[in-house]
């Protein structure tokens, strides 16, 4: 009985772990026995693991990660710095909303990665083009989430601050910014995914190093275990970032935890 109780207590992590391990076991075992897909295309977790070990120990992947991270961080930071004030401004000033909304909605909805070739033409192969691509992809989640956050700001709280003599500046700092903080974290989670797409696509098109370049090079040379290993690293990084943001939200916005629990 005690064992069963303990199981129910930790049902979520137990089932999650079992399903992931089971997935890899199935992959490993099925390909060699049942399924007739050429194992060359899908390779096997054991081979991917060996390739990953080689990549990390050999050091090749660190250089690629460093190159891609640099472009990502620049583009992402720019997206935050531009996106949040733009969204707040749009949310607080109706004229700004009406003027800017058509462009931003169209751009957010379109597959901006299609601009990659153009950006490479304009900025050349290298850091700048990738930074611009990451920025373009990551900025809209910040704009629209900041905008939605401002729109959902409690008018009562704005009136409270006004009634105590608060000025426009106080309303921004003491009401709007704290209100939109959880929206920003949600926006950042979306933006990370889009930003990573920007990096990879940018490096597919024209690059001589970086994670995207590594993936495309391994693919071109039929080194599929290495290719999968690199993709896996990307997946893990993306999960770590988005989960880290969730934790960060709990630290930055402790009042939200209680509100959601109710």
């Amino acid at each position: 009985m005690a064992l069963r109780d303990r199981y129910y207590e930790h049902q979520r992590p137990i089932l999650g772990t079992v399903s992931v391990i089971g997935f890899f076991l199935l992959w490993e075992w099925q390909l060699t026995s049942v399924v007739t897909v050429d194992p060359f295309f899908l390779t096997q977790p054991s081979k991917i693991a060996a390739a990953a070990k080689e990549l990390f120990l050999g050091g090749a992947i660190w250089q690629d990660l460093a190159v891609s991270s640099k472009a990502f961080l620049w583009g992402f930071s720019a997206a935050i710095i531009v996106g949040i004030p733009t969204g707040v401004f749009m949310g607080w000033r109706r004229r700004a909303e009406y003027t800017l909304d058509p462009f931003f909605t169209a751009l957010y909805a379109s597959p901006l990665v299609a601009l990659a070739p153009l950006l490479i033409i304009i900025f050349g192969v290298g850091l700048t083009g990738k930074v611009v691509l990451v920025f373009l992809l990551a900025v809209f989640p910040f704009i629209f989430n900041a905008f939605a956050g401002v729109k959902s700001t409690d008018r009562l709280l704005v009136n409270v601050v006004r009634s105590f003599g608060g000025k426009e500046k106080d309303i921004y700092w003491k009401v709007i910014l704290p209100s939109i903080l959880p929206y920003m974290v949600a926006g950042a989670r979306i933006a990370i995914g889009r930003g990573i797409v920007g990096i990879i696509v940018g490096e597919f098109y024209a690059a001589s190093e970086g994670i995207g370049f590594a993936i495309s090079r391994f693919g071109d040379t039929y080194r599929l275990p290495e290719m999968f290993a690199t993709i896996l690293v990307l997946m893990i990084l993306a999960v770590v970032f988005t989960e880290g943001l969730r934790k960060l939200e709990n630290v930055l916005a402790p009042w939200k935890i209680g509100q959601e629990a109710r």
Partner: protein
Amino acid sequence: MVPCIQASDVTLTFRPKDREAVTAINGLTLEVARGEFVSIVGPSGCGKSTFLNVLLGLLKPDRGEIQLNGKRISGPGEDRAMVFQEFGLLPWRTVLANVELGLELKGVAADTRRKRARELIELVGLTAFENHYPHELSGGMKQRVGLARALVTEPEVLLMDEPFAALDAQTRDLMQTELLQIWDRAKKTVIFVTHSIEEAAYLSDRVVIMSARPGRIKEVLRIDLPRPREYEMRLSPGFNEIKSRIWSTLKEELVTRIGGDGAQR
């Protein structure tokens, strides 16, 4: 002597886009003495809260004006503070930081305002909760924070917009008695908007009964019950008589309003 509050011919019409204009208050004239406790009752939508917001300085009347100590109200000021029906606490701030808000906006130094806020938190009995967030508090506790926050800037006039409407009946009774004690000590002028006849009769020196929209004053009733008032006083025949007098005046307005609504359909 100049009255503390002098409202003369206050008229305010809301003109929302793509909807009919609504005259919320029409020619409201009222004088309130320093230290007086005045309640305003009236049918829903009679402009009670609108009047409070004009007093607070968040709304400007189309006609007429309100003077405070002989000076025309043109915006928010530290001589007034409001206790809001839905509390209006900043959810990302602890009790202490919420109470400090008014002083912070005035630019008072951090240690001074902390000390002052702690005094008020003690006054409303929440010292053990100063580091709690609003979502961790009960409704009654939240409104104590609201009260402490309003008192911390030492306003001369306390505006209360149905402050206890969101509380359960027992908490409400308790808060009324505590409010009277605090008022007795702090000697503020209080304008108290409520739907509850009993609450108005129990707390006030005078009860202002407003007509249905557009709101104007229908009757002002002086409540000559001795102070301090204990809870038990509500059981006395005199108290019940006052309640029924307020009710009979108010009832005509409720009937008018319902009749009016019916005629429109």
